[in-house]
């Protein structure tokens, strides 16, 4: 039956509050592409991706058109490339990234994730070669995203990998200096990385996943913000209830789209990721939600508590609306991609220390943060170590996506364009962490990882 109120409510969310499906991500296993000849392996990778995903973009556009809901990104994640490339007799893994890039261009997706290695307990030769290849791979491709998992709650923190990633990030920035260090915007260092994350740049298709799968990431910070605008002065119980109801609606839509995409593509449905993902567009900001709760600016004392409430209520509302919830499922706080975060960082009201505290209670970590170009590799590694410790001890995913912007100093702004937005360069501690990082080895897994 016709219910005008429901139709109006839905279309207002889409038209005025930036409600969208943030991504339909097809996860593709590349295990069948293993071949000792690197050229043959690359060709198999290209063929496999282009065959599986040939209808991905068109299907996404059809669903978008029929339901009237924007689907912002169609993307692909693949098996961590270190696992595939290790079979080949080659030292240089850049051609594998190029094969991914070519395939992504052919099928029309804007990002492909999985130039990745999982090294939380140690490196295989293939892992080391992949990490060595990351800066060149990111500089020579447009669409490839890379991630490295350096820690888990079960394994502890691989501090050799942490140190190496500090250097890798620095080199990536240098090789893409003409675009502000863009390579680093496509590189994520994880603790407790998940296998079914649909969001870039950290998506990869885990080894426990099926041959091919559809994962969907919903969004909608603007819808939550709008709902809270009607709740001025109400106690937090009411705030949490309102967020839960809103998250339920958003997620039901995500579930519908995920099932529809899965059916049309003939590929199993994996998960809906409940993350609130902002964009640089006005009115699509997680920071705005926190400020609507009563903070004069994100970064004020109280921000961590506000974010904890938001993150929890989104999950509680969303989990009932989807048959399978997974991925990262938490509020994202990427500094460059959120107008409110950018505003607060530019005014010096939001610092790295506060962001680090915020990552204790939300997904996913220090995300899209620009720091001065002369920040030492050891300092970046130490930032990664701190985030990894938060993830490992709290049994959650944390990540670092940091850009030491070449030639930039505190107060400058690095503009990446599009969904990646623009990042104000934030100050880091000038104290030296070099001796700490150079110790190497592994930080043991915490006591509470021993659950058996």
């Amino acid at each position, binding site marked *: *039956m*016709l*219910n*005008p109120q*429901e*139709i*109006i*409510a*839905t*279309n207002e969310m889409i038209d005025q509050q930036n409600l969208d499906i943030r991504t339909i991500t097809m996860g593709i296993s590349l295990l069948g592409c293993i071949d000792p000849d690197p050229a043959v392996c690359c060709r198999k990778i290209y063929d496999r991706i282009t065959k599986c995903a040939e209808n991905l973009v068109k299907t996404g556009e*059809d669903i978008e*058109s*029929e*339901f*009237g*809901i924007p689907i912002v990104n169609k993307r692909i994640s693949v098996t961590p490339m270190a696992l595939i490339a290790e079979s080949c007799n080659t030292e240089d893994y850049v051609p594998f990234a190029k094969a991914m890039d070519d395939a992504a261009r052919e099928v029309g997706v804007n990002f492909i994730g999985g130039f990745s290695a999982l090294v939380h307990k140690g490196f295989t030769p293939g892992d080391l070669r992949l990490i060595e290849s990351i800066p060149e791979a990111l500089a020579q491709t447009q669409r490839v995203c890379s991630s490295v998992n350096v820690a888990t709650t079960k394994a502890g923190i691989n501090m050799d990998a942490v140190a190496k990633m500090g250097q890798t990030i620095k080199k990536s920035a240098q090789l893409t200096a003409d675009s502000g260090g863009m390579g680093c915007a496509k590189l994520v260092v994880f603790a407790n990385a998940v296998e079914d994350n649909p969001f870039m740049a950290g998506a990869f298709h885990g080894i426990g996943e099926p041959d091919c799968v559809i994962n969907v990431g919903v969004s909608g910070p603007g819808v939550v913000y709008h709902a809270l605008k009607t709740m001025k002065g109400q106690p937090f119980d009411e705030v949490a209830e309102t967020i839960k109801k809103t998250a339920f*609606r*958003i997620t*039901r*839509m995500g*579930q*519908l789209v995920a099932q529809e995409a899965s059916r049309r593509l003939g590929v199993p449905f994996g998960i809906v990721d409940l993350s609130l993902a902002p964009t640089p567009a006005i009115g699509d900001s997680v920071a705005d939600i926190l400020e609507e709760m009563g903070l004069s600016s994100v970064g004020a004392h109280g921000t961590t508590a506000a974010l904890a409430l938001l993150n929890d209520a989104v999950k509680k509302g969303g989990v009932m609306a989807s048959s399978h919830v997974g991925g990262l499922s938490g509020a994202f706080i990427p500094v460059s991609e959120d107008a409110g975060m950018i505003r607060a960082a530019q005014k010096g009201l939001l610092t790295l220390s506060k962001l680090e505290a915020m990552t204790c209670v939300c997904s996913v970590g220090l995300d899209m943060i620009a720091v001065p170009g002369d920040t030492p590799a050891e300092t970046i590694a130490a930032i990664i170590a701190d985030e990894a410790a938060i993830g490992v001890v709290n049994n959650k995913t944390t990540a670092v996506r940091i850009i030491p912007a070449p030639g930039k100093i505190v107060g400058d702004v690095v503009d990446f364009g599009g969904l990646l937005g623009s990042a104000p360069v934030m100050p880091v501690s000038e104290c030296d962490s070099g001796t700490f990082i150079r110790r190497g080895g592994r930080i043991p897994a915490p006591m509470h990882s021993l659950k058996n």
Partner: protein
Amino acid sequence: MRAIVTVIGKDQVGIIAGVSTLLASEDVNILDISQTVLQGYFTMFMLVDLAACRLSFRELADALDKKGQERGLTIRIQRTEIFDAMHRI
């Protein structure tokens, strides 16, 4: 397949006639109509059945959009499932 046609714009003679003529010519059956004035704009909702529709969904959406542009109206069509998913359990 059922869908909702939403028409929003300045009130004028012949809106319902124009939209329903187009729908009839493509064998789209109108099941229910509701109209109201919202913030000064004429707003109409139609529940339609596309089982016998001669056009693909996207062609029909484009035809409605074109019709809307001719008259200074916004006309969109969406499958009903999205509203059910978001508002009904």
